[in-house]
C-alpha cells in the first residue's frame, strides 16, 4: 500500500546537511522549529537552547539549478533564555516553539519567535559602514592631548566588512497562562495571533502592553475540560479569518468580523468517526498536530498522528483528500503510547504551488504526496545514504521482515529519529527539515 508512484513524482536530491554529524547530541542542540521566509532567501531554525540560526541562500548559486539549495549561516543569536516564574514556581524553558517571518517592509528582515510564554520580535539587519574619526582620541582608543585639538572633526562613514545584527525590537509577554503552540501573522501586516492550550490572543505588532482575547475555551470548571487548542493559523488572504485545530481532531474556522470574541465558530471541519474503528487511541491519534492553509487560501491541510487531510474551505463535512502517512503504525499504537511517541506533533507543509504536500515520519523518513491522488513516496533524510545531486531513493515499509534492498520492516524503524519540523521554500522546489539536531535541505531535481 506504500508509494509505488515514485517514478511519477518529482525527484529530490540532498543539497546540504547542517549541524554536527555526531551521535552525541546535547539537549540544547535539538532543533524545534524550521521556517523559510517569504522570499525563500532566508531559512530560520530554532532550537531547545533558545537559539535561532538564520541561513541565507548562496547569492552566487541562487540562479544555478544544481546548487540553488545551498544555504550558509547568515546570523546566529540567542532569542530566549531560561526563566523562572516566581509566582507559580515554574521553570520556563527557553525552547523555541515557533518562528514566523514578517513580510519584508524595508531592507531589514523581521521574525517572531516564541517559547512557551513569551513572543519576541527580532530585526535582522546588515551593516556595511562604520563611522570613523574622533576629536579627542585616536581610532585605536588612545586619548589625544586635549590641547592639540584646534579644529572640530565630524566622523565620516567608511565601508567595512558586512556585519549582520539581530536586535530584539519587541517583547510580548504575560498574556498566556498556558503553553503557546502557535503564532501566525495576519495578512493585514499589522496584527498576529498567538494560541495556547485554551486561548487565542490577537496582538498589534506595535503594542506589547495589550492583546485581545479572541478565543477562550477554558471551562469555568477545569474538570469539565475535554478539548485543547493544538494549532492555529490566519488565512493567507482574508484578514478576518483564522482557524484552530483541537485535540479532538476538529478544526474551527472563525470570522473576526462577526464579533469581537470569536467563541462562536462560523465553520466546523470534522470528519464523522467510524464507530467500527473506535479504540482507546482514537482520540489521541485524531488530535490535530498542525494546520496550514494552502497558498491560494482555498484549502487547508491538517495533520493528525496517522494522516494528512486536505479540506476545501467550502466543505465542512469531510476532507476532500486524505493521505496515509504511516498507516503501518496502526498496529503498534500500544507500544507508541508506552514510549510517548504517540504524542509527537508532526508538522506539515504545502509546496510552493500547492500541488504537493509534505510531512515527516519516524526513522528520519519524510513523506511527499502529489495532489493528484497518488499514494506518495517515502524518502529518507540521511547523509550516509545519499550523495549530492543524486535523486533520493524511495523506501517501502512492509509489515514482515526485510525483503528487498529498498524495503524496511516496521520493526526495524528507529522511533527516536523523527522528522517533526518541515518547511517548503515558498517559490521553489527546495525543502528543509530537522532531524534531531541536523537541518537537511533538499532540492527538486530539474531536468
Amino acid at each position, binding site marked *: 500500500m506504500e508509494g509505488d508512484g515514485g517514478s511519477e513524482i518529482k525527484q529530490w536530491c540532498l543539497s546540504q546537511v547542517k549541524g554536527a554529524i555526531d551521535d552525541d547530541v546535547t539537549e540544547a542542540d535539538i532543533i524545534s522549529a524550521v521556517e523559510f521566509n517569504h522570499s525563500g532567501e532566508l531559512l530560520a531554525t530554532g532550537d531547545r537552547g533558545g537559539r535561532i540560526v538564520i541561513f541565507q541562500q548562496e547569492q552566487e548559486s541562487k540562479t544555478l539549478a544544481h546548487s540553488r539549495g545551498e544555504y550558509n549561516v547568515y546570523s546566529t543569536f540567542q532569542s530566549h533564555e531560561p526563566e523562572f516564574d516566581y509566582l507559580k514556581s515554574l521553570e520556563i524553558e527557553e525552547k523555541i516553539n515557533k518562528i514566523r517571518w514578517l513580510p519584508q517592509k*524595508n531592507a531589514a528582515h523581521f521574525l517572531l519567535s516564541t517559547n512557551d510564554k513569551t513572543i519576541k520580535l527580532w*530585526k535582522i539587519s546588515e*551593516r556595511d559602514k562604520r563611522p570613523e574619526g574622533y576629536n579627542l582620541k585616536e581610532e585605536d582608543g588612545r586619548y589625544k592631548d*586635549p590641547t592639540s585639538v584646534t579644529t*572640530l572633526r*565630524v566622523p565620516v*562613514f567608511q565601508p567595512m566588512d558586512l556585519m549582520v545584527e539581530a536586535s530584539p525590537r519587541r517583547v510580548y509577554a504575560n498574556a498566556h497562562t498556558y503553553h503557546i503552540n502557535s503564532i501566525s501573522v495576519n495578512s*493585514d501586516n499589522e496584527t498576529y495571533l498567538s494560541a495556547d492550550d485554551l486561548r487565542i490572543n490577537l496582538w498589534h505588532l506595535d503594542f506589547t502592553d495589550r492583546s485581545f482575547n479572541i478565543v477562550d475555551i477554558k471551562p469555568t470548571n477545569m474538570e469539565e475540560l475535554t478539548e485543547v487548542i493544538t494549532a492555529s493559523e490566519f488565512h493567507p488572504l482574508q*484578514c478576518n479569518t483564522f482557524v484552530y485545530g483541537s485535540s479532538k481532531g476538529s478544526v474551527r474556522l472563525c470570522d473576526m468580523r462577526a464579533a469581537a470574541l470569536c467563541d462562536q465558530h462560523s465553520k466546523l471541519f470534522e470528519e464523522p468517526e467510524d464507530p467500527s474503528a473506535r479504540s482507546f487511541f482514537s482520540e489521541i491519534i485524531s488530535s490535530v498536530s498542525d494546520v496550514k492553509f494552502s497558498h491560494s487560501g482555498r484549502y487547508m491541510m491538517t495533520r493528525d498522528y496517522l494522516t494528512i487531510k486536505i479540506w476545501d474551505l467550502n466543505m465542512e463535512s469531510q476532507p476532500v483528500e486524505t493521505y496515509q502517512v504511516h498507516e503501518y503504525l496502526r498496529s503498534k499504537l500500544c507500544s507508541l503510547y508506552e514510549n510517548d511517541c504517540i504524542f509527537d506533533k508532526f508538522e506539515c507543509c504545502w509546496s510552493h504551488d500547492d500541488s504537493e504536500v509534505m510531512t515527516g515520519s519516524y526513522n528520519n523518513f519524510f513523506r511527499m504526496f502529489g495532489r493528484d491522488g497518488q499514494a506518495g513516496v517515502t524518502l529518507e533524510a540521511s547523509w550516509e545514504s545519499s550523495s549530492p545531486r543524486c535523486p533520493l531513493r524511495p523506501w517501502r515499509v512492509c509489515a514482515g521482515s526485510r525483503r528487498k534492498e529498498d524495503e524496511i520492516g516496521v520493526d526495524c524503524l528507529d522511533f527516536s529519529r523523527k522528522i517533526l519540523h518541515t518547511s517548503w521554500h515558498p517559490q521553489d522546489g527546495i525543502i528543509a527539515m530537522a532531524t534531531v539536531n541536523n537541518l537537511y535541505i533538499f532540492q527538486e531535481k530539474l531536468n
Partner: protein
Amino acid sequence: ARLRAEVLNCPSMAGADGDDSLYPIAVLIDELRNEDVQLRLNSIKKLSTIALALGVERTRTELLPFLTDTIYDEDEVLLALAEQLGNFTMLVGGPEYVHCLLPPLESLATVEETVVRDKAVESLRKISHEHSPVDLEVHFEPLVKRLASGDWFTSRTSACGLFSVCYPRVSSTVKAEIRQHFRNLCSDDTPMVRRAAASKLGEFAKVLELEYVKSDIISLFTALASDEQDSVRLLAVEACVSIATLLPQEDLETLVMPTLRQAAEDKSWRVRYMVADKFSELQKAVGPEITKNDLVPAFQNLLKDCEAEVRAAAANKVKEFCENLPEDSRETIIMTHILPCVKELVSDTNQHVKSALASVIMGLSTILGKDNTIEHLLPLFLAQLKDECPEVRLNIISNLDCVNEVIGIRQLSQSLLPAIVELAEDAKWRVRLAIIEYMPLLAGQLGVEFFDEKLNSLCMAWLVDHVYAIREAATCNLTKLVEKFGAEWAQNTIVPKVLGMANDPNYLHRMTTLFCINALSEACGQEITTKHMLPVVLKMSNDQVANVRFNVAKSLQKIGPVLDSNCLQTEVKPVLEKLAADQDIDVKYFAQEAISVLALA
C-alpha cells in the same frame, strides 16, 4: 565616560593654540558615536549646538552626510534626530539651503519603526513650508516621488503624508503627477500602504480643487471603503467626514451617502464600530436633512447592533447625537426613534454597554425638558441606579447635576440613597473610592439637611475603613465638605466625631484623627484649631505607639501656621521639645524638623 570626565575636569587646559570653547563641542561630537545610548541621545538633543559651532557650511557638507548614514541607531536616538532636523533650517543657512535637510529625513522616513517615520514625515512637512516654490519642485517633490515609488512599503507609507503639503504650491503638471502617485498608493499591494493612503485621504482632499475631489477623491474613497481589508475600510470612515465637509450639499447624496450607508452596515463589526465612534462628526458633516432621513435609522441600527463593542460606542454618542439634531424635529425624533432603543440598552446583557449609556443618559434630560424627563427618563435612571454593575450606578450618580437642573434631585433621592449606601459598602475598595469622590458633588446637590441626615454617617464610617486608600480619600473628602458647608457646620458635625477617634484602641484610627486635623485645620480656621484640635494633638504626644507620636510632630508642623505665636511658644514648643528627646529615632527626627520649620529653636 572617562573621556568626558577628563575633559570636564580640565576646562582651562586650552593652551596658546587650543580654543577652550571647542572642548565641550568636541565631546558632543565624539559622543554621537558613543556606545552608551544615553550619551548618544544626549548629543543628538544638542545637535543644534554642534551645528552652530561647525557653522552652516560644515553642517551642510559634513554633519548632514554623517547623520544621513546614522539610521542604524536605536529608535529613541532616531526619533530625537528626526525631531531636531525639523528645526534645523537656520543652522544650514536658512531657507535657501533647507533642501540639504532632505537626505537625512528621507532615510529616516524609510525605517521600520512607525514613531520614527511619523516624526520624520512631520519634520519634512514642517520644512516643506520653508522651501521656495522653485526648490519645492526641484528638491522636495522629487523626494516625495522617490518615496512614493520606493521598493519598500515603509517609504511608500511615508510618502502618503507628504502629498498634501506640496500639492498647493506646485505647477499644474506636477499636480497631475502627484494625483497620479496618490492614486497608485491607494491601490498599492500592501495593506500598510493602503491604510496610510486611506488615513491621509481626507487631508489630501482638502487641498485639491473641487473638480478633482469629485473626479479623483470620490472614486478612491469608494474603492478604499470597499477594500478587502477591514483595517482599510474602517479608515475610509474617517475620510468620509472630511470629504463630506468639502462637497456641496446637493452632491452628498450621490457621492458620499451610498458609501456611508454601506459602512454603517459593513459585515465587520470594527467598521461599524468606527461609524458609531465618528457618528457626531458624520452628523455635522452631512447636515440636518440627511441626518433626519439616513442617520437616524442608521443610529438606531448601531444601538441595536449584535456586537456589544458597537452598541457601547453608539451608546456613548446618544447625548451628542440628540443635541445636534435639527431643532424643529428634535423632540419627535428622540421620542419616537431614539428613546425606544435607549430603553432596551438599559437592560442590555453587556455591562460596558450599560455603563457607556449611564455616562451620557442623564444629559438627555436637559434636551427633553422637565415633563418628558419625569415621564420617560426617570424610570430609566431609577433602573440604572439599581443595576447590578457598580460602574453603571456610579456613572449615573456622577452625572446627577444634569438632572438636578431640570427636575430637582428630590425626585431621585428616594432611590438615590439606597444606591449610594450600597456603593459605599461595596466589597471592592475601588468602588468605594469612586463613590467617595462624588460625595462633595452629591452633598452640594442634595443640601446640608439631607446630607446630615443620611450621608454624614457614611462619610464618618469611611474614616475607619480597613483600606488605607479609603481612609485617605475620606479625609480629603471631609476637607471638601467643610469648604462647601462652612466652619460652623464642621465644628458641630465633624470635629467632635473626628476628635473622638483619638481615644480609639486601634492606633490606625488614632492616626486618622491626626490626618483629619492636618486636612481640616486650614478650612476650620484658627479658633476651632486652637480650641478644639490642638489640645487633642498635644495630648496624643504621650501615645504609646511611636508612629502616632511622630505623626503628632508632623501634625504640629502642619497646623503651626494656623496658630498664633503665643500659643506656639507656650503650648506647642514644650511638646515638640519633649518629642525631640524621644527614644524613637523617627519621632526625634520629625520633632526636630517641626521645630526648625516653625522656627521654635
